[in-house]
């Protein structure tokens, strides 16, 4: 399964957030997306997951165009997390994950009203799967704590579990290690590798270039809405344009 953005542009009023961006996410790989703040990375994610309709250009899933409809993207196998954690705070961790599985659960309204045997089977299967995802990301399988009461790092993990519950072919993580210390970052990096080993393509947005270059198979560099370079970490790391435009910029800002 490949997810591609084909010559995507996105403008907000007069502001050009994305300018003729092309990106391909091959199956079974970890793809990195780096760039300074405001480069348009999150906007590109929003286009790829159907939240935004690009001003021009197309999003293709396995060659077929994807409408600007998150439900269709989710059904098609594109799931995501958010840069600022956005869980359903008052719902239990388990219910959060079950909402992530929404598009894969088949239950009619009548079945939901009557709770017949077919319904109970589907509910039990969904719950079992949700618990498995909670365990996979390293949270307890019970998950009856409300999401808001979880520790910060656990909330990030819960968001990943919620996205995984939707059976994605492509998982998009928007700054999954933001605000984490060294050990926590290493744990997340191991988790991302484990997700890739399940046969799921992963796209990661990150600021931490060390993290990206050690983890990814392929790296895209987005600067001021334009795709500057892309290639394997070794070539991107040494590309003078990247050093000037991106690495230089962060060094200055530090």
């Amino acid at each position, binding site marked *: 399964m490949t997810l591609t953005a084909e010559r995507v542009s996105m403008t907000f009023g007069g502001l050009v957030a994305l300018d003729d961006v092309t990106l391909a996410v091959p199956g079974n790989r970890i793809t990195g997306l780096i760039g300074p703040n405001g480069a348009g990375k999150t906007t590109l994610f929003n286009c790829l*997951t159907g*939240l935004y309709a690009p001003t021009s250009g197309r999003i293709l899933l396995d060659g077929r165009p994807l409408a600007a409809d*998150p*439900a269709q*993207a*989710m*059904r098609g196998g594109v799931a*995501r997390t*958010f840069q600022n954690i*956005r*869980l*359903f*705070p*008052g*719902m239990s961790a388990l*219910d959060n994950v*079950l*909402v*992530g599985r*929404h*598009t894969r*659960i088949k*239950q009619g*309204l009548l*079945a*939901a*009203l*009557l*709770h017949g045997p077919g*319904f109970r089977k589907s*509910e039990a299967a*969904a719950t079992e799967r949700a618990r498995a995802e909670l365990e996979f990301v390293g949270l307890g399988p019970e998950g009856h704590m409300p999401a808001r009461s979880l520790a910060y790092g656990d909330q990030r993990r819960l968001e990943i579990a*919620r996205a995984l519950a*939707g059976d994605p072919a492509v998982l998009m993580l928007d700054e999954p290690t933001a605000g984490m210390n060294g050990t926590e970052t290493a744990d997340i990096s191991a988790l991302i590798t484990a997700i890739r080993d399940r046969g799921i393509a992963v796209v990661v947005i990150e600021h931490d270039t060390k993290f990206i270059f050690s983890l990814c198979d392929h790296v895209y560099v987005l600067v001021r809405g334009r795709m500057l370079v892309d290639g394997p970490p070794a070539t991107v790391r040494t590309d003078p344009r990247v050093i000037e435009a991106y690495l230089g910029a962060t060094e200055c800002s530090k």
Partner: protein
Amino acid sequence: MLVGALLPWASTVLPGGAYPDRATLQFFDAPHLVSGFRLHLVLLGVLAALLSRARKPAGIGVAVIALVHMGFLIGLGAPSIGGPVALAGGLLLMWPGLTAPAPELKPPGPAVARLVLLVAFAALVWLVSETLTAGGQSRATNPYGGAEFLAFCGLVLALACALSAYGVLAWLAALTDRHRFFAFSVMLVCALALPFTDAGTGYWMTVASTIGVYAATAIGLNIVVGLAGLLDLGYVAFLGIGAFTAANLAHVVPFPVAALAGTATAGILGIVVGAPTLRVRGDYLAIVTLAFGEIFFRAAQNNIGGLTGGANSIPGIPPISMFGHAFDKPLGVLPAGSLYYAVTVVMVAVAMVMLVNLRHSRTGRAWAAIREDEDVARAMGVRTGRAKILAFLVGSMMAGLAGAVFAHKLGTVGYESFDFSESVTLLAAVVLGGMGTVPGAVVGASLLFVLPEKLREFSDYRLMLFGLALILIMRFRPRGLVSS
């Protein structure tokens, strides 16, 4: 240090047998009150003396009873001497002192659990019957009725708080959850047994079935507001639509058909209202639904379409009649109105099952997700528009069904029953009782619709008392009386 050492002493010495008697000395001359206020105060005093964790709840109860008393006596123009003493005692009891840790309640075996549930629900129904009948039927038969009722409420409140302080309520809730089916059946049977208690008179059955209608409606609203988080300020219009539909069909078709028609009409209008509101959220949604409620109210008032009778109402709606028996007549030992009561109990039970089942389903989780964060719900693949319309549909159908029963039960339907204040009261019932919880809507509806019935003599202050109660509850239990 000194204060800390004195407090437990003060709270054990003061509340004992001595002070309640002193406090009640000047209360009323009427002999029957010995079993009323004084008994309550003595009971609470003993409770506080014996159980340290129950001290604060008892204090609350004593203070409430004292306040009711003082208010009532001052209203009669008589000075209250016992009142302030009792109030002081109550406040002292509430003073935080040393308390024993809560005992740990272990979950019992299934057989014991069932027995406990049986006893608990039977006790609950008995308590409901006592609360309903406390203070008698009206001012005509007992001039102190209102005050007696309020004082009894104080006692019930204290008992509930005490049980809660010992973790008994949470323990019972856990048992109910574990043996869901059994608990539900027992509850249904116990509720149906109400006509056999003190409340088994035609008058109380009528009151109870009115509460039932509003409770079912409140549960429907709870689906819309509590589960899906859609603030609907014109909800009572759907009750009206169900009622007017049934009223117009009552002479033509039997009740089940009229009820179905009322349910369906309300459901269709629910979709009609729901669809254009999909683009608005929060405050804006509230305003749109408010406008819809007002449109319905004005249309009904002016008899637009000739379906509502306008100011004349629609009179002469025949009672529900099945197997040749009209539901407003007594049946065997059952007093008149019992059959309507049974109908409403079944209706509330169905509504409860619907609410619980929906909450624990894909649809219910989608609603909760929309309530928590609509954008993310959409990003997770929830078709938010469809889910919201579904919430409106289910909620308005529930109200439509309740409306059909309402029409047959009352015999006349007029537009005044469906004005804005009714929507607000229903909403208050949901918020007071606890959003999204099942017993919450029932408790809230019972309180808000039984209080005016009980407190006729306070009718001038009714809205003020409502407001006061709302503020107090939101201050001390912001998530509702029955929070999950």
